[in-house]
């Protein structure tokens, strides 16, 4: 589709309609939902990274005043393991599987062995939160502490502690993907660069911690679960069909206002299952709200890869071949979509924006005594981009080529329709050179290189970094992901209910937990129907109201969820034309929808407004024969392909020689996310994503103590999140290459910044130190000491 016109509501930066509610403290989050008779759950968690449970003594806790019940795993008979929704097995014909996924059990309350600090072993339920918390300290667990393993690169070492009996070497799976003659490429290479590239473990840190409130209504047999979820239907399906074995139609899952997720609220967690089970036992509502400490220990973590990457280059900078061997830490258990992240969301992105002669990617997933790892903003794609953008820069340095030039030389030329990569996926449309050209222009690159040189002569360490990225969004064609091991389809639902007065309620399977759907989807609908936006209401997050939907992650809401809504709008218009044609005594095929009215083509006087048609639909006195009354349509949209946003980022840093501190002086981003419904909201997503990406490069990182397996960064005063005063004003731009995949031309914008910013900043720091002979820094975050030690080592060598 063509680029959108500027006079439409689609494409306007209107303010977010939900914000007054949020910024005045009037949102309704899970913890705000109050029910009479509510009980409070407190979990007893393992203080050890790895320990066998000899006995659990709950007697004293049960006697604590206010305690209603204490349960352990032994009490939860008939309850199954939390499911893993992605199956990597050769017998299922999943491509690339070298060693089958070890489907290890993950019980809601572990009864035999605790496998990470924070692993829940019992729950205390009481009349008050205080009573539950106090009594939980009185549950006595007799632990047999076992040796633990937490480090990614030590998980499979001989003698490493075994996390699961079903995975003897701690290997969860082995997987491989690629194409072309890789060995041949390396044989004919003029230069080969080889680097170890570590992508550290991150904690999502949504502003609202996870929470749930489960209520079983004995009279109706219905269970309602309020939960911090990015995908309430997925929660319901997994809990009903796999874990608790209760009828899906008797369960309603509501994800009300949710304060951020970054992926961590996609998954089904122990606490939600335990509370849903317990309310059926106790016939009273059961609530749990995570503390921040629990969030650090139990929310799924992100990233945690150790990679050896090799790039084969010709003298002129042509990329001949790429070899990538990655060990991906999955933590102690298989989280809901964990196996997909370091495989099909990672290996498939290693072609990047480049024409590469041959690619081979081998991934080993490993279990360790750490919190489970799953999708975190970007999920696999940031890891792929990081490997590629770091090794490309290393290649440029080895060839003494300009880092922008080597990228330009290897870009896939502009195309629309299909570019088949060597790693399974086929790109939808792209113009990668245009994004970089625009960035270089905004940057005034050549001038800045001169400034850098001048600064170097004064002894200052100034560095410039780039990253040119691609990502796969608009997740995902169901058949494709099914063939790759997904246990679910990845379509989206959109229902449009036009009320008799012409007011419109839209029910979307997408879920907003910060994205602004109540604004963007309303813009889309108001724009299509050409009615005031005030007439449009967006409803989401309630399985009792919305058709089965898959939720929000993978930058899919606007492209997949939006298209489903558009399909329903189109059906509404088609039906409206039939009603209007009847009223206007014309043929439906002669009716156009113009300016909020159905009119006879070319005859503006012969028109019926939208509201008159909706009223007629519900008061069908003068009505076409054989046409159903009412004006309500439901659609499910299953995309034919992923969409592939791309862009180019650059930044300038200064490194302080004395301390190793890195200061960001400029940050520039040119992103191409296809068409944009609300540029201000997309800018916000880009800004937030960049901050998160910079956070990974410079500050964030979950650190486990090697000996004890304790999480050393388990509070906000230890785990360093990005802060506003450490970030520069971003300079952002956009190119627009609409996708041909969906009728809206939207690619997806939620994760671009997170993907692009991390390598961009690390590249800049390496560039700043290049004058000292530094060409690589292996691990992130680039703490001040890491940078300082790098300077010390480089200076000592000279």
């Amino acid at each position: 589709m063509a680029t959108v016109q500027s006079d439409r509501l689609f494409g306007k930066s209107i303010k977010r309609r939900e914000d007054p509610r949020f910024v005045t403290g009037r949102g309704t989050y899970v913890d705000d939902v109050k029910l009479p008779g509510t009980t409070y759950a407190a979990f007893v968690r393992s203080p050890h990274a790895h320990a066998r449970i000899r006995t659990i003594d709950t007697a004293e806790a049960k006697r604590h005043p206010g305690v209603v019940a204490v349960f352990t795993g032994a009490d939860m008979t008939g309850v199954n393991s939390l499911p893993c929704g992605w199956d990597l097995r050769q017998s299922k014909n999943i491509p690339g599987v070298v060693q089958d996924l070890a489907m290890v059990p993950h019980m809601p309350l572990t009864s035999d062995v605790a496998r990470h600090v924070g692993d829940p072993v019992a729950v205390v339920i009481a009349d008050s939160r205080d009573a539950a918390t106090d009594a939980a300290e009185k549950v006595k667990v007799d632990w047999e502490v076992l040796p633990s393993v937490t480090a990614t690169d030590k998980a499979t070492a001989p003698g490493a502690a075994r996390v699961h009996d079903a995975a003897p070497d701690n290997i969860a799976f082995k997987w491989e993907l690629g194409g072309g003659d890789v060995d041949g490429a390396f044989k004919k290479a003029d230069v080969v660069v080889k680097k170890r590239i570590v992508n550290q473990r991150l904690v999502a840190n949504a502003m609202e911690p996870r929470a749930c409130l489960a209520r079983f209504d004995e009279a109706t047999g219905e269970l309602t679960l309020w939960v911090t979820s990015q995908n309430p239907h997925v929660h319901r399906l997994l809990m009903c069909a796999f874990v608790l074995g209760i009828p899906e139609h008797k369960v309603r899952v509501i994800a009300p206002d949710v304060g951020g997720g970054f992926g961590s609220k996609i998954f089904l967690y122990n606490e939600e299952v335990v509370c849903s089970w317990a309310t059926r036992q106790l016939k009273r509502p059961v609530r749990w709200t995570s503390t921040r400490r629990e969030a650090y220990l139990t929310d799924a973590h992100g990233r945690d890869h150790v990679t050896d990457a090799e790039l084969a280059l010709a003298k002129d900078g042509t990329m001949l071949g790429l070899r990538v061997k990655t060990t991906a830490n999955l933590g102690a258990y298989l989280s809901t979509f964990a196996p997909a992240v370091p495989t099909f969301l990672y290996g498939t992105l290693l072609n990047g924006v480049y024409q590469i002669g041959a690619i081979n990617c081998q991934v080993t997933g490993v279990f360790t005594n750490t919190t489970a790892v799953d999708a975190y903003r970007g999920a696999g794609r940031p890891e792929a981009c990081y490997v590629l953008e770091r090794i490309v820069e290393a290649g440029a340095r080895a060839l003494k080529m300009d880092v922008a030039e080597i990228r330009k030389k290897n870009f896939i030329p502009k195309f629309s329709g299909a570019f088949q990569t060597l790693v399974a996926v086929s790109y939808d449309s792209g113009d990668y050179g245009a994004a970089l050209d625009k960035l270089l222009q905004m940057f005034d690159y050549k001038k800045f290189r001169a400034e850098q040189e001048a600064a170097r002569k004064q002894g200052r360490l100034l560095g410039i970094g780039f990253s040119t990225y691609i990502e796969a969004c608009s997740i995902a064609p169901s058949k494709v992901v099914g063939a790759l091991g997904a246990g679910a389809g990845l379509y989206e639902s959109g229902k449009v209910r036009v009320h008799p007065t012409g007011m419109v309620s839209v029910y979307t399977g997408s879920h907003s937990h910060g994205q602004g759907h109540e604004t963007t989807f309303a813009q889309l609908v108001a724009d299509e129907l050409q009615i005031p936006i005030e007439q449009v209401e967006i409803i989401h997050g309630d399985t009792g109201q919305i058709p089965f939907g898959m939720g929000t992650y993978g930058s899919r809401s606007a492209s997949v969820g939006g298209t489903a809504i558009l399909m329903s709008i189109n059906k509404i218009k088609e039906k409206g034309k039939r009603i209007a044609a009847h009223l206007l005594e014309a043929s439906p095929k002669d009716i156009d929808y113009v300016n909020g009215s159905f009119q006879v083509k070319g005859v503006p006087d012969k028109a019926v407004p939208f509201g008159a048609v909706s009223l007629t639909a519900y008061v069908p006195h003068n009505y076409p024969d054989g046409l159903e009354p009412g004006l309500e349509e439901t659609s499910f949209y299953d995309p034919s392909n992923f969409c592939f946003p791309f862009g180019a980022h650059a930044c300038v840093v200064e490194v302080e020689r004395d301390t190793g501190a890195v200061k960001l002086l400029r940050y520039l981003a040119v992103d191409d996310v296809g068409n944009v419904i609300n540029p201000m909201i997309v800018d916000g997503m880009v800004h937030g994503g960049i901050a998160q990406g910079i956070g990974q490069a410079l500050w964030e990182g979950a650190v486990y103590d090697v000996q004890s397996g304790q999480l050393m960064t388990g509070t906000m005063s230890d785990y360093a999140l990005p802060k506003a005063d450490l970030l520069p004003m971003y300079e952002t731009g956009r190119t627009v290459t609409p996708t041909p995949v969906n009728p809206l031309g939207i690619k997806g914008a939620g994760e671009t910044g997170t993907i692009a910013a991390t390598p961009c900043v690390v590249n800049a720091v390496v560039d700043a130190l290049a004058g000292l002979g530094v060409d690589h820094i292996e691990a992130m975050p680039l703490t001040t000491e890491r940078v300082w030690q790098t300077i010390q080592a480089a200076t000592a060598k000279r």
Partner: protein
Amino acid sequence: MYPAAFEYHTPGSVREALSLLGKLGDDAKLLAGGHSLIPMMKLRLAQPKHVIDLRRVPGLAGIKDDKGTIVIGAMTTHWQVESSPVLREKCPIVSDTAGVIGDPAVRNVGTIGGSLAHADPAADMPATAIAAGFEFVCEGAKGRRTVKADDWFKGLMSTAVGDDEILVEIRVPAWAAGSGGAYLKFPHPASRFAVVGAAAMVTLDGTGVCTKASVGITGAGTKAVRAKGVEAGLTGQTLDQATIEVAAQKAAEGVDVQADLQGSVEYKSHLCRVFARRAIEAAVKRAKG
């Protein structure tokens, strides 16, 4: 993140607080601004059975000039210290240090006495307490006694205050003419406590020679300490860049530097030297006006 149950006491005088403290002993904790104690209680790292809140004790907050000595009540907030015209004029390093503690929310409630009695090894004010020569006035059943800054910090979160005493005021000598001081820190990326902080005060005579130098180091070790080697390298010298650089090399001497996630012993020792140098340079600049 919910504290265990405790009894809450609100004495109306120091005498009453002391009596409670005497009666309750080890089971009691004194509450000042609460910015250290309450987080520890929420994490249940501290579970006192009794909390004695000093906030309703009259006369413990405020800043006054007592014949050349500035007297700061223990319950004076960091913000009051930061914004005090008396301190700004007579010993500005104290206000400057208070101004980099935590964030405005912390500074509005947290108190100088609470912080100095808690003696977090990464707190900012301890370095300045040493450099500026604070005196700590403790009150007990038998009356008041005064402890010098050098004798105040005993170890990790441990001070000279007795179990049956309350820190009631801090006495700060006013600057001599020709003095300058500065506190500079390398902030923890998450908490912004001092990974390393250095406070320096120098007094220069009319010819630019340093007649007195006083340097305190916080953050790196288990407690704030005086950098005696640095002081010796500055006293009696003309403080040019080279002299400062050489003197600052001794900044980590006497510091029991602790390795942690923010740095190895090597790196933190290096930071002691860097921040001592920077603080001295800034102090000299200010002393020269």
